[in-house]
């Protein structure tokens, strides 16, 4: 009987053969924290250890509220800089042109690697599965524990296999696939599970598209989500890998799954997640014409260069009808977009471009909604009040759908403007 990806990676780390349901204690290769490194430090100090386990295993990336919008945020950032100095941490991404959204940086900078065990004090840490890592979000106490001991416990998860075939039709993208999957199995459909994406359509996808899929694994409750570490992944990571501890590990063909699903990309259409849950799927036809007040193209889900290109292709030579906020996922993406002339497209259309970071995704700053307003967003959550106002609505969609909607001031079908 074969093993799943999770069984193989966790088994390797634990030094024994393991199966779903077993509890293992393993050492994570990288521990990522963002602005919440400040409160984690407070908890860490309570343990009574003065030095972190392995300073080179810690990665701090400021992104949630940068530059600091309030005194409290500023104080947290200051505290983090002190910790970095005191503990001698080398992997620190401050508010500089080397930074960006934490998950983007982890992937761009060669931390996200095949076969590694990675934890982050952020729920979208599952993104690194796009590079074949076993990566998952954890809470602050747990992160403090990992800093102190270099260890973390996991229950080896059951696995779900999602096999994807076919080709996207015009105007349809990875975001539409993942919103459809979540709509089908619901917000708790993969609770505690390891979600594996298989099939020729996944292999045909860019790394950016795979990141979008894995990023949203948490929105169906998954512990982690992962794509095969194929040649595309290896070609990308080899020159930039931050450690040589990685190994391309993938599920056996005869692995046993708790659930198997199949999707044909050719059957998908542009879609949205309606307010106020991510599993509230609707095909574009059902919501077309809904008035919007803001469009947001950003976040760890969909703000890579590929996403910006797709949006720009729709906005080119046209003018937006509602305020549109563009936030590239990192300064590397920012620079690339600038070089390619995408900024001219966005600015000519009337969009504004903010500094890389999480922006308004979780309602911290840079685009909070007013009561009664509706936003269409490329981010990952549309929970009530998420963007700062309880009486506002958020529709989640792909970069193409967001761009098409920004042009009309109402939710629109990207196929009509492509």
């Amino acid at each position, binding site marked *: 009987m074969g093993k799943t990806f999770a069984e193989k990676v966790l088994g390797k780390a634990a030094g024994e053969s393991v199966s779903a349901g077993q509890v293992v204690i393993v050492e994570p290769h990288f521990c990522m924290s963002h602005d919440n490194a400040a409160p984690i430090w407070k908890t860490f100090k309570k343990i009574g250890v003065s030095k972190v386990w392995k300073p080179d295993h810690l990665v701090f990336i400021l992104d949630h509220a940068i530059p600091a919008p309030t005194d409290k945020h500023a104080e947290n950032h200051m505290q983090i800089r002190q910790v970095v100095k005191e503990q001698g941490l080398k992997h620190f991404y401050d508010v500089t042109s080397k930074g960006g959204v934490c998950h983007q940086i982890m992937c761009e900078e060669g931390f996200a690697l095949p076969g590694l065990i990675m934890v982050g004090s952020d729920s979208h840490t599952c993104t690194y599965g796009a590079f074949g890592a076993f990566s998952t979000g954890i*809470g602050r*106490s747990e992160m403090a524990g990992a800093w102190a001991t270099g260890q973390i416990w996991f229950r080896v998860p059951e696995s779900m296999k999602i096999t994807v075939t076919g080709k996207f039709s015009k105007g349809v993208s990875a975001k539409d696939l993942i919103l459809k999957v979540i709509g089908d199995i619901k917000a708790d459909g993969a609770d*505690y599970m390891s979600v594996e994406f298989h099939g020729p359509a996944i292999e045909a996808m860019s790394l950016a598209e795979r990141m979008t899929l894995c990023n949203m694994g948490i929105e169906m409750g998954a512990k982690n989500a992962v794509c095969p570490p194929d040649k595309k992944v290896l070609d990308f990571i080899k020159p930039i890998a931050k450690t040589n501890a990685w190994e391309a590990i993938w599920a056996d063909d005869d692995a046993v799954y708790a659930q198997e699903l199949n999707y044909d990309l050719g059957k998908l259409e542009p879609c949205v997640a309606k307010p106020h849950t991510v599993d509230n799927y609707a095909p574009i036809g059902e919501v077309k014409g809904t008035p919007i007040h803001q469009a947001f193209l950003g976040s760890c889900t969909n703000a890579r260069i590929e996403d910006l290109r797709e949006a720009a292709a729709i906005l080119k030579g046209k003018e937006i009808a509602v305020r549109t906020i563009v936030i590239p996922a990192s300064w590397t993406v920012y620079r690339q977009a600038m070089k390619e002339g995408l900024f001219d497209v966005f600015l000519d259309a009337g969009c504004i471009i903010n500094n890389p970071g999480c922006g308004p995704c*979780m*309602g911290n700053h840079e685009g909070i909604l007013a009561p009664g307003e509706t936003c269409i967003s490329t981010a990952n959550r549309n929970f009530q009040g998420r963007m700062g106002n309880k009486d506002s609505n958020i529709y989640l969609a792909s970069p193409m759908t967001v761009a098409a909607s920004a042009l009309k001031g109402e939710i629109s079908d990207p196929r009509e403007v492509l």
Partner: protein
Amino acid sequence: MDKTILRGRAWVFNDDVDTDLIYHNKYLAETDPKNMPKYSFEYFPGKENFAKEVKEGDFVVAGTNFGCGSSREHAVYCLKYAGVPVILAESFSRIYYRNAINNGYPVLFVKGLSQAIKDGKIKDGDELEVNLLKGEIKDVTNGNTFHGDAVADLEKDIMKAGGLIEYLKEKAEEKKK
């Protein structure tokens, strides 16, 4: 009265209660757990008065996937420090569950709770009697009973120590010996 038997009022919630609704992003910069209860459920429609009216000993009762969404531990602290002794739900999101256990905060998986809430068999304000050892929940107001699952061994050890940090401290002490 036996301390393993708790009595209090129910605050009843639906399925998929997300962490944004339990504790909003707006207050994430807060780092002192004791200041967190006043923001509990501020954005939850119909439960805006929770923070003001919750009494020490009241229970939070919910359907499936309680605490889905972000990894913020505030969503555990705000209820723990509000004096809610245990959360009763049909199921919990993975991160929320771990955060609770790691803070020595009891949560009980209760079969059939989601449907019972939908059917009105357990309502806001009902008087509940919860036997933590047996995992038994009795709705004293209407006589319905529900059964919860016990937690696994490792989780039990962490809980017994009072949370992950205390557990790790104990382990560190053991090593020194």
